[in-house]
Structure formats: structure tokens, C-alpha cells
């Protein structure tokens, strides 16, 4: 099951955020690739922990920019972030509890999320951030 190919068109034009989006992309790619190698899923759990940490850092960066830009849909957007973190924490617990097929379910979930949030919701940031002169 493949993840996505990176395209520069995924960038929204703000360097710090784009780097972090690429960072999230890279960790998800690694999680996908590691499934081809790992026999018992132990490292998958540890990699997911890193993903959660990285995501939290990214969200706080992005929220800082949104506040600075007086972004009108800030509250909505932050809700999506909080929901995602809650979902991730549930997944990490499910991995710990060795729920059946949890790794593949997690990968599907992360791919759908990346498409819907990073390549969806976050596109709305492009215009207001650009108008604010962020780069």
C-alpha cells in the first residue's frame, strides 16, 4: 500500500510551515515503508510516538501564524488539530493494546488525514498568509 509522492505544489508558500508539512509527509512515508520490513510492529509504535510529538510541534507553529494573521477560521481549524491529536492518542493506545490490523488501519487513517487536512483544510491558509506577507 503506497503513500503519496511529494509535489512542490503541496507548499503553501510559508517556509516554516511547508518544511513541517514535508516533515509530517516524510514520517508517514517512513511508517508506510517500515511495514514492509518489520516483523513484529514494535518500532511502529515508537515511530508513531515520534509522529505525535512532531505533529504537536507543527500544530502549535501553525496556530501561532493563524493568530498573528487574525485568521477568521482559527477556532474551527484549531478544533481539527485537537481532534486529530485525540485520535492519534487513541491509535497509540490501540497499538499498545495490540488491536488487530491496527498498523494498516493507522496507515489508511494517516493517508486520509494528510489528504483532507494538510492538502485540504490547510490550503485555505495560503491566501490570508500570503496577504499578511508571511513567507
Amino acid at each position, binding site marked *: 500500500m503506497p503513500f503519496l509522492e511529494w509535489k512542490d505544489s503541496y507548499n503553501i508558500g510559508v517556509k516554516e510551515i511547508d518544511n513541517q508539512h514535508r516533515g509530517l509527509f*516524510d*514520517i508517514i*512515508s*517512513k511508517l508506510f*515503508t*517500515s511495514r514492509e*520490513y*518489520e*516483523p*513484529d510492529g514494535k*518500532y511502529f509504535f*515508537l*515511530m508513531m510516538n*515520534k509522529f505525535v510529538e512532531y505533529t504537536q510541534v507543527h500544530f502549535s507553529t501553525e496556530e501561532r501564524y493563524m493568530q498573528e494573521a487574525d485568521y477568521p477560521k482559527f477556532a474551527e481549524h484549531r478544533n481539527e488539530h485537537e481532534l486529530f491529536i485525540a485520535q492519534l492518542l487513541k491509535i497509540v493506545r490501540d497499538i499498545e493494546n495490540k488491536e488487530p490490523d491496527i498498523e494498516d488501519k493507522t496507515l489508511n487513517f494517516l493517508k486520509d488525514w494528510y489528504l483532507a487536512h494538510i492538502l485540504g483544510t490547510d490550503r485555505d491558509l495560503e491566501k490570508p498568509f500570503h496577504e499578511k506577507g508571511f513567507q
Partner: protein
Amino acid sequence: MTRPLEWQDEYTVGVKELDGQHQVLLRIINTLLMEGHDEYHAAKLSEATSSLIHYAYVHFATEERYLAEARFPYLEQHILMHVDFIMKTLELSLKVKEGTLESRLELLRYLKGWYSSHVLGIDRLYIPFLKANRLA
């Protein structure tokens, strides 16, 4: 940079199985070092990196089993270093697929540096614990 690594007797950690695996890792990395530069096809390099990752999983599982048995107090940190290695190697091997010489050299530099600092460095910290538990 592409000079191969050489196994020395003093590299032993005192456990035959682990020494054997460390030597296999060294051989795989050497193959990459010797053949992984410019004329080598990126596809072949990524195939060899793939066997390295496979073997690393096998080796790390064995080593972590010994360390658990020896009640190595830094096992958790040690496992995280193994995860970092896997993640970094996966990342670099994905980059190698893009086909640039710089990406190939980056991978080779990383692997060589990792072998010296991890296998020949960090891993030595657990030797006293293996000995204390008569595993080595």
C-alpha cells in the same frame, strides 16, 4: 569516504551471536561503501539498503533480547536509537530513489558514521551488563 570498515578483534562485545551479526552489518555496509558511489545504479543501491534494513531489524531484535535479559538499565534509550537508525536509513533510502549523487553519498556517510558511533561506540556500554549477568 568509501574506504571499507575493517573488523578488529577488539570490537567484540563478548557474545558470539552479536559479534556475528555486527560483522554481517559491517559486510553489508562495506558492500554499499565500495559499490555505492557514482557508477552504481541508484536502484541497486536502494535494493542493498533494503537488505541492510531487513538485517538491522533482525539484529536489533536479537540484541534487545540480550539487553533485556541482562537488565541493561538504558534499554529504552538504546531501543530508541535503533528506531532512529531505521527511520534515518528509511529516509535516506527514499531520497536515494530520487537518483542524485549527493543523496547516495549522504546515505553512505551516514551508514559509515553510524557503524562507528553506534556499533563500535554506544554498544560497548552494555558489555559490563552482559558480563555481570554471565551472558558474555
